């Protein structure tokens, strides 16, 4: 039985004007928790199965700009444990085929 291919997840950060937490540090923890289950890509590259949008605060400025649907997971703080973020992304990827 072969290994399941990694889920392609597009990563997008907000502009980071005055974030309430270290977005990059948080993403690195998420990436570590995901291990080989997620292949990180960008929105511009296309063909992603899910998207992770990391906003630095509740304002979530990107929400007005990005035409993303249910495939996207929006984070506005670092309160969700990285493993839970990964679980939600995998679920979204599964739902999007």
């Amino acid at each position, binding site marked *: 039985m072969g290994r399941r291919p990694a889920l392609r997840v597009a990563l997008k950060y907000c502009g980071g004007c005055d974030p*309430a*937490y*270290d977005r990059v540090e948080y993403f690195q923890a998420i990436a570590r928790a995901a291990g080989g289950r997620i292949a990180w890509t960008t929105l511009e590259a296309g063909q992603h199965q899910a998207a992770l949008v990391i906003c630095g*605060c*509740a*304002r*979530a400025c990107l929400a007005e700009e990005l035409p993303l649907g249910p495939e996207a997971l929006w984070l506005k703080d670092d309160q969700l444990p990285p493993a839970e973020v990964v679980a939600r992304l995998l679920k979204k990827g599964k739902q999007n085929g």
Partner: protein
Amino acid sequence: MDRIVTKEDYIQSLKDQKHLVYYAGEKVEDVTAHPAFQPHINCAAMTYEMALRPEFEDLATATSHLTGQKINRFTHIHQSVEDLIKKVQLLRAIAHETGSCFQRCVGWDALNATYMTTYEIDQKHSTDYHQRFVDYLKYIQASNKMVVGGMTDTKGDRSLPPGQQPDPDVFTHVKERRADGIVIRGNKAHQTGGVNSHEILIMPTQAMRPEDKDFSLVCAVPLSAPGVVQIFGRQTNDERRLSSEIDIGNPRFGLVGGESLIIFEDVFVPNERVFMCGETEFSGILVERFATLHRQNYGGCKGGVSDVIVGACALAAEMQGTAGAGHIKEKLAEMMHLTETLYSGSISCSAMGAKTASGAFYPDPLLANCTKHNVTRHVYEIARLAHDVAGGILATMPFEKDLRHPQIGKYVEKYLAGVQGVSTENRIRILRLIENMTGGTALVESMHGAGSPQTQKVMYGRYGKLDMKKKMAKALAGVRD
């Protein structure tokens, strides 16, 4: 009356409701006929009048997200960042018309804070507070009634929590629970516009401990309900309203909001008007939301009021021949700088507002907090500069009665004259307006309205992101942990 539309409707609605109000030790039969209250009523009426004026309609009205009907914006739940910005713009615009507090924002903020928080209480506890509140909100939007936001309890001994007060009534609380509702007892202090409102939306005054369930209360009560008593607060120079026009300074619209102490003496509240009862963990967030929404306002209304002060000072300078002096121009420019600084704070916290789980939008709490904190300083500085520009005459002018006096009136006319062609009466009117807007109660309101400075400083600890700031400094300095 099904719906209050005009100023006349509003005044009639106040006459009809027969609420119990005391002024200077006397029961007031009709607040609309009493000179102590008429300026405040005129101010609040402006929120109705401007909704009918096409030049203000865009700001003063909104479309209800509940019914799709056109409503007064003071009953609207903010649905976007644009709504948050329009709120601030509206407050500045009304302040230009009144030069004083028009009171209705307090209830508006209470409506929005309660809307957001009841939604979250229901999510956690499977209660039906939010639906009850939506029904109440529909009633307020349809009737266009004025709601006072009941936040501040008198609190007795501040070192003791509510449940340990010798007299628990210093915090509003549930005294009795019945199948069909609750009976409440207590008080709300500094209630802006209380004597000329229709309803009070009671909220907890602070974060509550788990054992203070009876004090974690949100409910709506008509101010005409049995057991509700209001005692009106004194203001600086309030007796001038009884005997003069010019000496009042702003005769039509008075001074700040008109605050009362509202007492609840075993008031029954039916279940459909109870929106939180015992969910102590939501008290803190409700208070914070109300405070943030209210602090958002201050650069709008105080910005607008300060515009009037700047205009009055410029006129005073022209009337007394000092307008060309460099230091006067500089002071006026400084006053405008401070005014626009206040306004920009309110706009910025609105622009950085975010959507809550309920769908309602909410200003950035740190920036809103900072705006109000600036008001505790800048309004005082604006007033200081106004006193400087206007001159000592501000504090020594004779009575209006002296100006009108058959024998000595000519002396007032002659010796208080300024630039040729300007009437002495007009000069006195402008100076009295400045006096009214820059002293006593008006300043205290800027200090403590929407929370005292210390309550704002607390918020920097909560939202100031100190850890991030330290991280920035460490990175630049090359500090390694």
